[in-house]
């Protein structure tokens, strides 16, 4: 059913399912009621007809085949609600004259059983009869008792219509109850909507966690997202403030020097100007990279194997004399809860660093173990002395090593990893080079 999308609205979905269902069920109950009523009436009529036939039979036996005895006595009128006809030999008797044309042919046929006629002409078009044949001495006796069904049908129909009316009223009540139930149970959604509106308008800061159980995780997640947003806003404000502080001064200096008409620019001044611009670039790069990190976020993930392969291939093209290798047992489709850009930044920087220092070989290994998600890069370069291992990629180190690619990359890696609640370990590799091991928790904690 493409024209009804049940996921669009809970209220609509419930109404669409419950209303037709209750109408259909009520209708079915009514139809079944009609069928049962019909059957009950039929068996009631059958029983009565049979009883009357046996009563007549008894009387005929008592009177020894004399039909005249049947017509005497008023109580017949009271006992027999139905018309009957009797034939003993060639003698016939009809209890009511208007039934005569209908019952006469039945008397001539043989066989015991019920007969139903619905198409006969005359006053009585629909009747039901029971015929019994038996022998009395040498004479053949046929008794037919018949009932006009139209009268019964009419009362039955009336009853059925009354049932329909009652059903309709009950259906109305049921619909009302359904509607009320939906309304009541969705009232919490309306509350949530109002709360969201208030949130948008700034009338409240967080959503109320006192909601039905079904919505509690949702509200919790939303509140966490709001926290994350707040943190991010605070962070980017701080970054921009830092940036403007550290960029405006060198810009002012450069402009001042350039706008001084009479001043000739000697080589020393030019170098100073260039240095100021490089500083600006460094600051920009630094802050921009930091603000581009997504950090741990629900619903963001990346395929580490695919990304690592691409980076390794690329670095292999740039450092042609070095062999970049990937060692992993993870499937290509395996996803880690790390945002794609962030993962690229981590892998790219440690691989690039290893490519710079490694002599001939860089190995990246990706695995998952008890500690979490592990990324390990080893190279066969000169390595770093034990004492200096702990200072790698720390802030102080970065600032005084502004030469391209030195330190900055590892500082960025540290930053990203910290944001995911993971850690970086620097160590000596088997071949004496540097080994960088990054461990990230395998679950996002916002």
């Amino acid at each position, binding site marked *: 059913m493409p024209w009804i999308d049940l996921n669009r609205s809970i209220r609509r979905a419930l109404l669409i399912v419950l209303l037709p269902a209750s109408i259909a069920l009520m209708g079915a109950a009514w139809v079944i009621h009609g069928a049962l009523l019909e059957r009950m009436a039929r068996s009631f009529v059958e029983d009565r007809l049979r009883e009357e036939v046996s009563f007549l039979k008894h009387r005929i036996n008592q009177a020894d085949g004399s039909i005249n005895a049947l017509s005497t006595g008023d109580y017949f009128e009271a006992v027999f609600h139905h018309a009957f006809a009797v034939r003993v030999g060639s003698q016939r008797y009809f209890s009511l004259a208007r039934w005569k044309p209908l019952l006469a042919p039945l008397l001539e046929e043989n066989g015991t059983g019920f007969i139903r006629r619905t198409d006969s002409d005359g006053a009585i078009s629909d009747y039901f009869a029971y015929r019994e044949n038996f022998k009395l001495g040498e004479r053949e006796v046929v008794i037919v008792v018949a009932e006009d069904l139209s009268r019964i049908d009419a009362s039955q129909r009336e009853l059925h219509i009354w049932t329909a009316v009652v059903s309709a009223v009950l259906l109305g009540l049921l619909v009302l109850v359904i509607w009320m139930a939906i309304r009541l149970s969705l009232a919490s959604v309306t509350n949530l909507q109002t709360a969201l509106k208030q949130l948008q308008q700034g009338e409240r800061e967080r959503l109320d966690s006192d909601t039905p159980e079904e919505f509690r995780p949702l509200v919790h997640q939303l509140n966490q997202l709001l926290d994350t947003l707040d943190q991010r806003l605070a962070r980017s404000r701080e970054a921009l403030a830092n940036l403007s502080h550290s960029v405006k001064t060198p810009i002012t200096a450069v402009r001042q020097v350039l706008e001084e008409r009479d001043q000739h620019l000697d080589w020393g001044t030019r170098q100073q100007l260039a240095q100021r*611009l*490089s500083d600006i*670039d460094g600051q920009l*790069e630094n802050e921009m*990279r930091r603000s*581009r990190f997504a950090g741990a976020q629900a619903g963001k993930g990346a395929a580490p194997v695919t990304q690592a*392969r*691409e*980076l*390794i*291939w*690329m670095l*292999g*093209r*740039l450092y*042609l004399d070095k*062999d*970049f*290798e*990937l060692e992993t*047992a993870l499937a*290509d489709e395996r996803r880690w809860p790390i945002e*794609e*850009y962030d993962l*690229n*930044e981590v*892998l*790219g920087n440690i691989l690039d660093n290893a490519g710079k220092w490694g002599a*001939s*070989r860089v190995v990246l290994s990706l695995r998952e173990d008890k500690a979490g998600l592990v990324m390990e890069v080893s190279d066969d370069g000169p390595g770093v002395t034990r004492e200096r291992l702990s200072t790698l990629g720390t802030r102080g180190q970065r600032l005084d090593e502004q030469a*391209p690619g030195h330190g900055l990359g590892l500082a960025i890696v540290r930053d990203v990893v910290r944001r995911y609640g993971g850690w970086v370990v620097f160590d000596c590799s088997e*071949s004496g080079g540097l080994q960088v091991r990054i461990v990230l928790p395998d679950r996002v904690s916002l």
Partner: protein
Amino acid sequence: MRLLLVEDDSLLAESLQRQLSSAGFSVDAIATASGADQLGRQEDYRVVVLDLGLPDGNGLEVLRGWRARGLTMPVVILTARSDWQDKVSGLKAGADDYLAKPFQTEELLARLDALIRRSEGRVDSMLCAGRFKLDENRQVLATPDGEEHPLTGTEFRLLRCLMSRPGQLFSKERLLEQVYNLDESPTHNAIEAYIRRLRKLAGKDAIVTRRGQGYMFNALD
């Protein structure tokens, strides 16, 4: 040595043109993607410096167009963006090197030097086996479905060995020789892992295993 400089910032372009000329290049400078595309196809350049953000299009599209036409001159791309994905797509499009702005002219000259030296005597070497093509310069495998798969160092050497003689059986020992440096202690398991990965790229039937004997590249048509 002819060099094509594609850069839309006139100040930067003029300054670069001066400095590249004084470094011995004969420089053609152009500021648009369409012009660059045409010049690259008409003229025979030794090397190209290509800016990615051009007013009338993306430099990567121009580069893809050249490579699709079989032009193999080395290309250095310049861009102001510095994320890793950008570098990967630049190299995938066929660039040979990558320089993020701002850069120093010495750095650019050094890169150009290295690229030219590297590309000297380089012939367009494609190793073909059936409908598989292994681009030896770019270390990329093109599968019959037209997809390109970048390969890591070992994957490439292993595949080059297998594809050099399609239909010939290579023992694990022989492949280990090809693949590892001397100081490593190779294991058969490692070879199996590499073969598994290559099969994933090239398709299950492309590399056949002969139990206990070795592997064979099956050049299906």
